[in-house]
C-alpha cells in the first residue's frame, strides 16, 4: 500500500508500470486518474487545492485499508496532488490490483467515492471573474450509500 500526497506532478504511465511490476500473480490492475477540466465557458485559470497535512495521509491510509479489508486485493496506490493546477493537469490517481477483475474494479470505484467526500481536500476555481470554492455535491455524499 502506498499513499503519496504531493505538490509535484506525477507520471501516470511510470506509476502504473511500477505498480504493476510490484504485483505477484494478480490477474487484474485498475487505475483511475482525475484530470482538471475547464469550466463550461472555458475560462478556468487555475484550480487551487488545499489539504490538511497530517490528516490527509491518515484519511487516505484508512480508506485504502477499508478497501483492502473489503475486497481480495493485492495492492493499493493513491497519489493526490495539492497546490495550483491548471486545466489538463492530473489531480490524482488510484491503482488497485486483485486476482480477479470484479474486486479490482469495485475497490477502485470505492476508493474514488471515499476520496471525494472523506479525504480533507478542498478545491477552489480561479477565473478572471474571481475565485470560488467548489461545493461538495449531494450526489457525491449519496454515492457512499452504495457501499452500505
Amino acid at each position, binding site marked *: 500500500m502506498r499513499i503519496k500526497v504531493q505538490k509535484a506532478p506525477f507520471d501516470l504511465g511510470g506509476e502504473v508500470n511500477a505498480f504493476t511490476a510490484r504485483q505477484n500473480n494478480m490477474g487484474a490492475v485498475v487505475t483511475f486518474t482525475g484530470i482538471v477540466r475547464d469550466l463550461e465557458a472555458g475560462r478556468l485559470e487555475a484550480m487551487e487545492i488545499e489539504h490538511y497535512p497530517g490528516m490527509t495521509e491518515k484519511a487516505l491510509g484508512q480508506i485504502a485499508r477499508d478497501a483492502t479489508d473489503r475486497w481480495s486485493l493485492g495492492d493499493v496506490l493513491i497519489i493526490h496532488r495539492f497546490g495550483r493546477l491548471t486545466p489538463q493537469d492530473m489531480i490524482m490517481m488510484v491503482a488497485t490490483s486483485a486476482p480477479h477483475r470484479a474486486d479490482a474494479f469495485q475497490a477502485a470505484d470505492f476508493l474514488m467515492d471515499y476520496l471525494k467526500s472523506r479525504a480533507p481536500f478542498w478545491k477552489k476555481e480561479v477565473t478572471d471573474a474571481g475565485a470560488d470554492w467548489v461545493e*461538495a455535491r449531494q450526489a457525491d455524499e449519496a454515492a457512499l450509500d452504495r457501499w452500505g
Partner: protein
Amino acid sequence: MDVLYFAWVRERIGEPREHVETGARTVRELVEELRGREDRYAAAFADLDALRVAVDQELADFDAPLKNVREVAFFPPMTGG
C-alpha cells in the same frame, strides 16, 4: 489546544490556525465560545450544517468531547478526487 481552519472557514477567520485556551468540554461548546469572540467567528460558524469537524485529525461530530485533545479543525465538506 490548536484550532485549525481550512478553505472558506480559514478565509472568514483570517488565519489558518491559532492556539486556544479553553474550558470547553465539547466541540459545540468550543464553537459557542469562539462565536462570542468576534464577528469573523460568528460569520464562519453561522451555519454548522455547512461545516465539518476533525478532532485530532479524525472526522468527528460537534458533540465530540475535547478532553486530552490537542487539535481541532473546522472546514467545509471535502471535495477531493
